[in-house]
């Protein structure tokens, strides 16, 4: 009997799931970074605080949040699964191997950058999301919490390094997702340009926040 292929079970299918969830998370990044731009408005956080409260009270946003969590979990779970599957494909490695001569660094360390992004995500959710949504911000407004957090050079360095890692992950991930979804070669150049938004502009947008508050605090 011929073996059968399912999208769920095949190696390509697994990558397709990673690609679709990855692109969905990219979409979320756009929304997230756009909202955060309110921090730079120079109104001592009035607009930002209203934005956070409106999000908290919106049933739509709270429902999308659940989908978002599912997106993260599936992307992470499938990433680990494919990684484990792939590791078994070469039990004995080369004594001498020079992968840097045939492939880019970001493409080879997707699992590591992915794991570090998870680490960042946990810290990040603890600092902001859990405080704003559940445990309370200790009398500070949401804007003041952000401002106070980014006063710490240690936290800022951690944050900026994490954004660089995210940039690395997206450098490979964004275009790779389209390849996995079977993009036709004529679109490749266009995708490479759109990818710049994701691996360069968005991480810079996030990293601008600690820099902004550090400068603001010092002046």
């Amino acid at each position, binding site marked *: 009997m*011929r*073996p*059968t*292929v*399912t*999208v769920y*079970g*095949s*190696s*390509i*299918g*697994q*990558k*397709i799931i990673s690609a679709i969830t990855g692109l969905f998370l990219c979409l979320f990044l756009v929304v997230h970074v756009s909202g955060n731009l309110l921090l730079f408005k120079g109104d001592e956080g009035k607009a930002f605080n209203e934005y956070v409260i409106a999000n908290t009270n919106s049933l739509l946003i709270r429902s999308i949040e659940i989908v978002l969590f599912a997106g993260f979990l599936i992307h992470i779970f499938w990433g680990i699964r*494919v990684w484990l*599957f*792939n590791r*078994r*494909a*070469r*039990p*004995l*490695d*080369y*004594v*001498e*191997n*020079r*992968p840097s*001569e*045939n*492939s*880019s660094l970001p*493409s*080879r360390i*997707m699992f590591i950058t992915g794991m570090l992004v998870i680490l960042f995500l946990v810290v990040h959710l603890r600092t902001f999301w859990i405080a704003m949504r559940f445990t309370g911000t200790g009398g500070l407004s949401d804007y003041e919490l952000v401002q106070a957090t980014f006063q710490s050079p240690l936290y800022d360095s951690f944050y900026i390094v994490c954004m660089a890692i995210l940039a690395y992950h997206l450098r*490979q991930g964004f*275009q*790779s997702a389209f*390849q*996995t*979804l*079977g*993009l*036709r*070669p004529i679109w490749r150049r266009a995708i490479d340009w759109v990818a710049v938004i994701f691996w360069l502009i968005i991480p810079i947008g996030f990293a601008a926040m600690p820099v902004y508050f550090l400068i603001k605090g010092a002046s």
Partner: protein
Amino acid sequence: MHITLRIWRQTNPAGPGRLVTYELSDVTEDMSLLEVLDLLNLQLARNGEEPIAFDSDCREGICGSCGLQINGRPHGPLKGVASCQIHMRTFKENDTITIEPFRAKAFPVVKDLVIDRTAFDRIIQAGGFISVNTGGAPDANAIPIPKNTVDAAFEAAACISCGACVAACKNASAMLFVAAKVAHLGRLPQGEVERKERCLSMVAQMDAEKFGACSNTYACEAECPKEISVDNIAFLNRELLRAKVF
């Protein structure tokens, strides 16, 4: 020229193997690397030692039997050539050259540098063909095909099934090989009929052989002696989606 060779020696599939160092001083720069191995084997045989087992046939880059990991790269440092096309002028006096077999779970080592690549044969048997009644050769221009379709199919058809894509991939994935076959046959009208079946069967066999999944590092394209493009992998992905979803 004088050359130091570090060669993977392994007496049987169960292993273990190890790198053994050999010194050679009567090498000329217009020898091919495989000729250097021949020379070394002659010396080993004269000394009553076991010669090094390695595969080769055409020695002109068309049969695909000579896959070697040379200095950490499949088919060595040059672009678009097979191991048999590497000549000693590529190296310098007193260089050390490390030669290992291609490594993948699906390509077990048989002996020394010889690996078992029948996993590729089984993938081809699963669907890498066109079912037709063979009769007299058909008229050359009986079926008109657009030029770029023919070119794309021909580029994919250049695959010599050497396994360098698997060897280069950090996941030992056979995607470029399978993609080349699926794209070669699937693009042409003769292959159109079995297009869906072919893709599904070959992917299923590829997975059953325990090749890894594709991480899109494109190391395969960089190391392919026939420089087959990863566009074919996108084609394969598209074929699978088409066969399963659309």
